[in-house]
């Protein structure tokens, strides 16, 4: 086990079990390894902490919690980047921008494709979509 000092305190993690981003996140291409942090609160949000930069952490969620029709599937090139084999599962996660005062938005334009088998993820940009980087919570 290893320990890093993040801006949220010390985090112990197993280097063999980090979530690998082979191409990083957009704008953070050099950060390849993340620790998946369970939210201590119940709820659909969790966060990933960069191993390489203790300042960097992203809040993520399964978008289908909020946008039932939201679907993203990897193309062949993306499957290869994810190291997926036939029959491997892949699902979409999105970055949640959390501001103060319970103000938050979802980045539906650039979701993260996550393959649990190889434990890899990539951020992709959706083409020909009307989704925005700042999608508010849909009103029920």
């Amino acid at each position: 086990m290893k320990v890093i000092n993040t801006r949220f305190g010390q985090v112990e993690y197993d280097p063999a079990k980090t979530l690998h981003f082979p191409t990083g996140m957009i704008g953070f291409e050099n950060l390849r390894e993340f620790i998946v942090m369970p939210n201590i609160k119940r709820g659909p949000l969790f966060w990933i902490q960069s191993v390489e930069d203790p300042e960097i952490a992203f809040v993520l969620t399964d978008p289908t919690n909020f946008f039932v029709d939201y679907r993203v599937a990897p193309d062949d090139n993306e499957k290869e980047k994810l190291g997926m084999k036939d029959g491997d599962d892949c699902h979409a996660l999105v970055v949640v921008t959390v501001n103060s005062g319970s103000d938050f938005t979802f980045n539906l334009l650039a979701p993260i494709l996550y393959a649990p088998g190889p434990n890899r993820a990539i951020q992709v940009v959706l083409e020909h979509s009307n989704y925005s980087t700042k999608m508010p919570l849909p009103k029920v």
Partner: protein
Amino acid sequence: MLVLTRKVGEGIRIGDDITITVVEMKGGGIRLGIVAPPTVKIHRQEVYDRILEENKEATQWIIADLDSLSDSLPMLKEVK
């Protein structure tokens, strides 16, 4: 940065399989035609920049805001 001058109908070739052609010049805008393999992703620069800015902004959260947000969100299904 490599800078080239092209006329309408002329183009450039990048590598073995990407061709960019100047299709039309109209009202200060330039229409480009791009031929590339389907695996090559093509995006307007401003779309990419917007995502980069959004990612930067998304790293600036604090745990107190996440906690209060988690309390207010309905749990629709179990987290994977």
